[in-house]
Structures are given as structure tokens and as C-alpha cells.
């Protein structure tokens, strides 16, 4: 072993460089900088390598990069579209159709899953043993089976067993259910119907307004308007009926009719949408039910006891004390479930519901071969939705944290 000082004496230049390097390495402010520099370098090199490879590969396959393909004619049909679409529209249009279909099924799914999830979550906590048991059987069954399997089950086993159009299940003369989907009458907005619909909205608005005024008056003065519920009922029934008679409107429904092999007219819900919606709703509601249960259970027993001992009625205990506290616990994981549902709606592609992944990352990608652009655009859509929702969630969490302490 040689003495370091001895060495440094002999060979002066190198050891001082080593020493300098060692000093820098031990420097608490330099080392992190250095390490971060190394990481950035590695990431950049990896990126360059990947981009290089991709460029080479694409060139060899004769695929040109860029987003020009979006304006080319798509040339394929889509079975459900919320905007005008046919084969002559562009690939860019298929992108929009896909996004809208994804949003449609996500929106409907969130709506139904929330209702079902809250009902089952509350049932899970019911004092009725049988009801609580059934709710927990529901939850444990549906959240432990893959969503894709559930989608297949509804699509291939249940909806495919529905009768042919000629033997449709019918509800009255206007609602039909068969192999091809669910057919509902569509109200046609004729002259006069519009005022009636507007008046319905006005009546509901007025009734809610009256209710809130009454509530406020109750809180401020201690007295409520006597007979307020009757006024509200009168408003709700009176205004629409009155406008109906005054405008002389008649309700015209475009009822679906059997023509050839299928029904035409009315609103039709294609079986792909039906199966996807059923599966998403049931699967997600099982998770939402658990979120709701955990939220309600997180409100301590003492809170309910304190509210009850002040003489509040059970309903008021729930609305004034339990729910406001439970909602704070419920909302963050609930939004998470909503995001999951939106992402899970991409399984649509397995049964051919024309969502974003199916139409764009499926058909469009296959036809154009623009894998990088198409996948990137698809991912960007989901990412935008996810990130904007989590941004809102962060703002919400900060506000809640601020109020509590």
C-alpha cells in the first residue's frame, strides 16, 4: 500500500485532478446536479436511438410520417355516429366520431354506474341482513370477474339470445327489443312542441327556485311559506298543461316500424352499445358501492349520535351531518372510478362498438399503417381527459384540506 501523500508528491498532475473530482463528487450541491445530468443524457440518448430506429424502419417499409393522412378519405362505414358521417368523410372525421362515441358511452356509463353504485353501497350498510348480504354478493361477484368477460357475456350470451326482429319483445306499440337492439320512439319537435318542452323546463326551474326560496326563508326567519309543496305541484303540473292547450300542440312520435328485416325510425340503441353499457355500469357500480360504503363508514358513530341527541330527525342527520362528511371521503376515489370507466370503455373494440380505439386505433391504423401517429393521438386523448380530471381533483383536495384545518 502506498502512502497517498507520497504518490501525490511523485506524480503531481493526475492525483490533483482525481482529488478535484473526488471533492466535487463529495460536494453536496454538485453531486445531485451531476446525477441529474447523467439521467437526462441517458434519456435523451435513448430517445434519439428510438427515433432513429423508427425513422429507419418506416423508411424501409415505405411509410411516410406526418398527419397528412387525416385529410384522406376514410372509405369505411361506422355503425353509430353522433355527427354526420359516411364512407366519403376523412380519417380526421373518424377520429372525431370515435371520440364522441367514447364520450357517449362513458357519460352514460358514469350516470348509471353512479346511481346503481350509490344504491348498492347504501344497501350494503342496510340494517336488513338479507339486503346487505345481497349487496355484498353483487359487489364481490362483479368486481372479481374481468370486465372483458362481462362484456362478452352480455353481448354474446344474453343480447345474442334475444329474438329476431319479427318476434321482438314489444312494450306497447312503440318500444321494441330484439337481436338488433333496443328501439324507442323519438319525439318529433313540431311546431308547438317546443314551447311545451320549454315550459316544462321553466316549471321545473320555478319549482326548484320556490323550494330554495322557501328553504332560505325557513332558515332566515324560522317560518316557511304555508302550503309550499302544493304551490310547487301546481306549478309543475299547471304550466306545461296550460302551454299545451294554448299552443294547440300535439305530440308526434316517430315510432320504430318493422320494415324488411329490421326496424326503421325512432331511436335505436345498437346491441354493442347496450352490452358495453351494461357491463361498464355493473362492473364500475360494484367498485363505486365499495367507495360509498367506505365513505359512509368513515363518518364516526359519534357524529350520528351527537346529531341525534340534538333532536335532528334521521333524514336530517343524514343530509346535514353524515353525507357532507362522507362526500369528502367519497369524491376523490369516485372520480378515480369515473376515469377508470372512461379508460375501460376502450374494451369496446373487442365487440365492435365504434369507440375511439376501435375506429381509430383499429380500422384507421390498419388502413393507413400510420401506427406512431394514430397511437400517439389516441393516447393523447385519454391522457388529456385523465390529466384534466386529476388537475380538478387536486384543486378540490387543496380546498377541502384548507377548510378542515
Amino acid at each position, binding site marked *: 500500500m502506498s502512502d497517498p501523500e507520497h504518490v501525490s508528491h511523485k506524480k503531481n498532475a493526475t492525483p490533483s485532478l482525481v482529488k478535484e473530482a473526488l471533492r466535487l463528487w463529495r460536494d453536496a450541491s454538485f453531486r*445531485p446536479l451531476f*446525477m*441529474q445530468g447523467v*439521467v*437526462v443524457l441517458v*434519456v435523451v440518448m435513448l430517445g434519439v436511438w*428510438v427515433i432513429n*430506429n*423508427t425513422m*429507419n*424502419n*418506416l423508411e*424501409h417499409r415505405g411509410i411516410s410520417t406526418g398527419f397528412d393522412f387525416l385529410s384522406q378519405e376514410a372509405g369505411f362505414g361506422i355503425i353509430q355516429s353522433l355527427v354526420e358521417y359516411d364512407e366519403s368523410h376523412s380519417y380526421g372525421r373518424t377520429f372525431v366520431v370515435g371520440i364522441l362515441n367514447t364520450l357517449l358511452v362513458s357519460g352514460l356509463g358514469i350516470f348509471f354506474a353512479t346511481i346503481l353504485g350509490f344504491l348498492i353501497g347504501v344497501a350494503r350498510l*342496510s*340494517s*336488513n*341482513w*338479507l*339486503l346487505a348480504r*345481497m349487496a355484498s354478493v353483487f359487489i*364481490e*361477484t362483479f368486481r*372479481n*370477474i*374481468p*370486465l*372483458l*368477460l362481462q362484456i*362478452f*357475456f352480455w353481448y*354474446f*350470451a344474453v343480447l*345474442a339470445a334475444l329474438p329476431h326482429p319479427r318476434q321482438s319483445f314489444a312494450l306497447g306499440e312503440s318500444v321494441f327489443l330484439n337481436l338488433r337492439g333496443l328501439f324507442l320512439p323519438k319525439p318529433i319537435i313540431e311546431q308547438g312542441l317546443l314551447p311545451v318542452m320549454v315550459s316544462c323546463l321553466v316549471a321545473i326551474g320555478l319549482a326548484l327556485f320556490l323550494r330554495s326560496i322557501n328553504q332560505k326563508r325557513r332558515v332566515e326567519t324560522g317560518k316557511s311559506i304555508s302550503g309550499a309543496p302544493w304551490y310547487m305541484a301546481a306549478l309543475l303540473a299547471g304550466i306545461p298543461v296550460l302551454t299545451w292547450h294554448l299552443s294547440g300542440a300535439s305530440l308526434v312520435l316517430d315510432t320504430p316500424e318493422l320494415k324488411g328485416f329490421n326496424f326503421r325510425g325512432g331511436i335505436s340503441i345498437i346491441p354493442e352499445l347496450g352490452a358495453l353499457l351494461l357491463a361498464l355500469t355493473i362492473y364500475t357500480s360494484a367498485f363505486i358501492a365499495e367507495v360509498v360504503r367506505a365513505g359512509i363508514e368513515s363518518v364516526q358513530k359519534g357524529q350520528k349520535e351527537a346529531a341525534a341527541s340534538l333532536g335532528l330527525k334521521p333524514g336530517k342527520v343524514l343530509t346535514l351531518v353524515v353525507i357532507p362528511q362522507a362526500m369528502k371521503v367519497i369524491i376523490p376515489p369516485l372520480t378515480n372510478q369515473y376515469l377508470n370507466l372512461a*379508460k*375501460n370503455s*376502450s*374494451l369496446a*373494440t*373487442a365487440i365492435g362498438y365504434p369507440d375511439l*380505439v376501435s375506429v381509430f*386505433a383499429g380500422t384507421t*391504423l390498419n388502413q393507413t399503417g400510420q*401506427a*406512431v401517429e394514430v*397511437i400517439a393521438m*389516441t*393516447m393523447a386523448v*385519454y*391522457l388529456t*381527459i*385523465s*390529466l384534466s380530471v*386529476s388537475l380538478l381533483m387536486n384543486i378540490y383536495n387543496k380546498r377541502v384540506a384548507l377548510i378542515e384545518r
Partner: protein
Amino acid sequence: MISHDITMIPAREPPARAVGVMAWVRNNLFANPLSALATLLIAYSLYLFVPPLVQWAFMDATWFGESSSDCSSDGACWAFITARLDQFIYGFYPEEQQWRADLFFAQLAILIAWLSFKVTPGKKWVLGYSLILMPVVSWFLLYGDLLGLEKVETHQWGGLMLTLLLALCGMIASLPFGVLLALGRRSNMPVIRSLCTAYIELWRGVPLITVLFMASVMLPLFVPEEVVFDKLLRALIGIILFQAAYMAEVVRGGLQAIPKGQFEAFNSLGLSYWQGMIMIILPQAMRLVIPGVVNTFIALFKDTSLVLVIGLFDLLAIIQAGLNDPAWLGNSVEGYLFAGLVFWVFCFGMSKYSQRLEQQLHR
């Protein structure tokens, strides 16, 4: 002062209406009119649905047969399952080599049993084997082309075997990445922190199906042309990239639960960052995150069914394929019920296990 001896009142049995079956029924099923109504409605619908279901699934069912025509028309046709059970378990794995898959299953069963019983010795080594060697050993056992084992191409793999393999390998391989990402996201070096955060949020923000599409069409573009991944490996890479982000969030939760004092303690003992992390923080954090890890594993296990969209034949895909066999048409309910049952048993078992762990942690 009155000398007053207190005679204690002896404990009595509660009044009959307060205990026993009748009291339980009254309190839990008929506590109020609404509750009574619910009880009656549920009981009635159970009475309507359960007996015919049992009749269909067991009494009238056909258990063995060669095709749909062997099945009775009013009962379940379980013959579809029994006739194809081999395929559902092994995929297209050659029959004379199936002992290798059996060995793989046996290995899993032994490891799980070993790790879940309290008394078995050498848990540390077994865990180490499961996390490091087991995926490699399993791969070579199934793939072969080594030590005189015949080579079995991955496109012949399928069924439950593939489902388990994807889930396990995806899980185990993503664990170390997840830990690194979690540490990175909590690091105080801004560049590393933002890179890790970006990675995690990116993968968590997109559906697995797009990741699988990406892995299957884009991954071959990312590497030089000479490198060829087979389909299974591509799917696995996609799953690992995706799963690592979720794992990172679980681990981060565990790290956050470690009191600040522990970090200060190892710093003041003069341990370096990595020494402290490996010897002090991670062992505590990992114990906390086991339930979370099991929960993400359940999610992954269910999600492996998505590989059917890129043409791999996992349990669900192979049943789906079997349903299209002309000899077995019209058995979709039986097929899905069987697949559902298998997935359910695994997932429910694991979720109960994770709940038990959680309760142990809180005690």
C-alpha cells in the same frame, strides 16, 4: 350509619323476545315495515330464480359428451368444458409436453402455500426465489430448447397457463421498476422527480388496451430491424411498462406512511441514501404495501384477458375461440360461466388474503 349489606343482583337471561332466532329475525329482517317489504321481495325473487338455476346447472346438466348434440336441451352443457378442459388449461401446448406446464403449476402452488403458512421455514429464500429466479426458471421450463427439453414456441402457449404466466411475470418484473419510480418521484432532485412523475402519470392516464396496441405495432419500430420480439414478449413488455406505473403509486403510498423520523434517524446515523433506503425505509414500506400490491395484482390478473385483442390465447380468448367451434355452438353461457368462475376464485381468494393482511397490519 346503617349497616347495610348490598346484595348483588345476579345476571339474568335476556327476555326471550330480545335474543334467539326470533329476535334476530325481527331485528335484522323485519325491523320496520320498509325492511320487512325488502326482505319479502328479495326472498320471493330468490325463490323464483334460484331453484330453476340449480335445476339447470346441476340436475338437468350434461357433464360429458362429444358435441352440443349430446347435451340435453333444458340443462347446462358442461360437456363443452370437460371435453376441452385440456385446451383451456394448456392452450395449444403439445400434449406429450404438458407435464412441463403441470410442473409450472405445481411450482406456483408450492410457493404460494409455503409463503402463506405461518410455520414454514426459510421464507426469505423462498420469497427471493419467487421474485428473481422463478420467472426465469418458468420461462425456460415452458420454452425449452435447453437441457434436452424440446422447444415449444410461445404461439402454442395459451389458456390458464398463459394467463397466470402473464400476470405473474408482469407483476414480478414491474416491482423493481415500480420501487425505483416511487423513489424517483419522492426524490429531491427536480429533474429525476419530474421524469418519474411524467412516466407514472403518462401510463396511468391511458387504457391498457392502447398500451398493448402500442407494444404490438410500435415496439418493433422502436428497435433496429434485426431485433425481433415475439408476440408474447411484446405483450409482456407492454404490461410491465404499464404495471410499473401502478406499482410505483402503491409503493409511494407505503413510503409516505413511513414517519419522517425514520429518514432523520438513518441520516443522523451517517448512512448514505441507498443504505438507508435499502436497510431501513424499504423493508418497512414494503410490509405496508403488500395489501396494495395484491390489489394491483388482482387488477392485472383480470386485465390479462385484454391480450386477446392482440391475438394471444389466454383463458378467456381460448374459451371464446372454442365457442365458435361448429360442434359446440350455443354454449356461450356455460363457457363464460366457467371462465368467470375460474377468474372469480383466483381474484376473490386474493382479495380475501389482502384483506386479512390489512387487518394484521392494523393490529
